[in-house]
């Protein structure tokens, strides 16, 4: 049986998406936890100083959770990127009580419009599709919009022959969307199956925390899987597991370093080395294929 020609599809898609891709300046709104103490070393921290240090504790190296705009400020060349699929908005397909209210509250509290932002930007000079989840928006939960945006972004990378970098941060499914939420696991994973055929790399960066259905789908499907230090990464959350086994979990269980040791993470990379590492990897995956630097 002949292979399906995915390329034809992506060529069809090309002119349409291209028109949106004009670079703009980064949106400077940033969401950071409001604590004034580092949760790891308990030393007092200053937000401005933290920001200078890529939101890594300057006492103990704790990596604070950051949201999409801050991540992009750190990653994109000159902090410039172009967002797409920004206008999609959630519905309440199950008529689940309070979903709309919770959603609006999350919007207000986080200054974000969803748990994922999909953009095109340059990293080390190379155009890249970047997907960034924000745990700050409803626990980074994946509903229909998150699934759709990630799917479109992955297929955009496939279509335009761009590398794709995906930052995860999620508590799992958006339960208020019920079965639709579960279906996003398969939908995003299928998009990655299609990307695979174009042989464009997907580089996943796991950040704290990444659990549930997000971990059990696109988070584990990168060609390269990086992780920030000490991030919690798992399918079942620690409390669920403790509930099952009726005992405390061992130290370091489900942390990035644990996953590297267990063979599921290629490398734990400190946030300050991340851009350099991603640049090298993007380069290594593109250079050999006739690209130029």
């Amino acid at each position, binding site marked *: 049986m002949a292979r399906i020609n995915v390329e034809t*599809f992506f060529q069809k898609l090309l002119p349409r998406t291209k028109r949106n891709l004009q670079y703009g300046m980064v949106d400077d709104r940033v969401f950071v936890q409001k604590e004034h103490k580092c949760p790891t070393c308990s030393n007092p921290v200053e937000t401005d100083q933290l920001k200078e240090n890529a939101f890594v504790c300057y006492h103990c190296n704790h990596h604070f959770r950051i949201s999409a705009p801050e991540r992009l400020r750190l990653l994109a060349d000159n902090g410039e990127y172009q967002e797409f699929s920004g206008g999609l908005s959630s519905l309440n397909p199950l008529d689940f009580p309070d979903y709309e209210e919770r959603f609006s509250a999350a919007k207000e509290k986080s200054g974000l419009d969803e748990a994922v932002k999909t953009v095109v930007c340059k990293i080390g000079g190379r155009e890249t599709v970047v997907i960034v989840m924000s745990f700050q928006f409803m626990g980074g939960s994946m509903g229909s919009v998150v699934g759709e945006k990630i799917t479109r972004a992955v297929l955009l990378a496939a279509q335009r022959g761009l590398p794709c970098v995906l930052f995860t941060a999620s508590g799992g499914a958006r339960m208020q969307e019920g079965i639709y939420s579960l279906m996003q696991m398969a939908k995003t994973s299928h998009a990655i199956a299609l990307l695979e055929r174009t042989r464009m790399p997907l580089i996943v960066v796991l950040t704290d925390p990444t659990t549930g259905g997000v971990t*059990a789908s*696109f*988070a584990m499907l990168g060609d390269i899987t990086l992780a920030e230090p000490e991030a919690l990464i798992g399918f079942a959350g620690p409390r669920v597991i403790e509930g099952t086994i009726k005992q405390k979990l061992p130290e370091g269980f489900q942390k990035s370093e644990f996953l590297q040791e267990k063979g599921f993470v290629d490398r734990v990379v400190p946030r300050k080395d991340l851009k350099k590492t991603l640049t090298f990897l993007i380069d290594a995956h593109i250079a050999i294929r006739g690209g130029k630097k």
Partner: protein
Amino acid sequence: MTQRELQKKIRELKNLAAHHKLDIHEDLSRIASKIEGSESIDVTPWQRVELARHPNRPTTLEYIEKISDEYLELFGDRVFGDDPAMVGGIARIGGVAFTFIGHQKGKNMKENLRRNYGMAQPEGYRKALRLAYQAEKFGRPIITFVDTMGAFPGISSEERGISEAIARNLKEFSVLKTPIITTVIGEGGSGGAIGIAVADRVFMLENAVYSVISPEGCASILLRDAKKAQLAAGLMKMTARDLLSFGIIDGIVAEPPAGAHTDLSFVAARLKENILTHYKALSSKKLETVLKERSRRWLSFGEFYDPEEKEESFFKKFLPWGS
């Protein structure tokens, strides 16, 4: 236009209405249930949950036994172990060889300990994928049976990569070059269920349930009261009827009024008939067509408002496989 497509149109209309704050919800629901042709039977969602979990509910191996003329179970994932919570093998039905894969619960305490109550570990999902690749290589259609409250949430499962195992299955099953037919026969619990449920056709037994989280989990997390499971069972819309109306599944396989466990032969016969009918339909198409339709199916799931595309979704217009 199939029933699933009709349902989809209604949902789109409903979503649009919701966005524009038009109150046509009730009317649409009424239309929907007319399309279904469903008379309202007095079984509550929670009763379905109880039937789906009934200790005597027939299991995967019982159905395989009934459905096939000859069956050979195969073991192991080729990397770490064999998981008794996930079974599979090669079966002959008439002149056709099928690969069967399914979660396996026990029917008594001892068996349930061995089968881990049907909660599979990474080995189970990797065995499933191994058998699926084998089926693909030798041109065998794949039949999967879903019956799990979820993947096993334990230390062993996490450290051997349950997330990776499920994720890989989702990706690989979505492009596997052989027809796949799934039936949720009991509990369809979350990632553990969908890990073997990416298929060309998905069915549910009448009293099966399928959801992103258990009613208990939903109650304790979203309703902040673990005792509200019965309420949650309704809110989660996890019955076969719900999922058919959402267009997530393709049909419902009837059970006797008191549940599948009261007449295994009856249900197995319906199940077999349904599988063979849809296998025939799928095998009459070109494999390429089957794959295109599978791709379209899985990319289409999700309900949201898209201002640029209006009610036409991105993927509907720019399907990888053409429209």
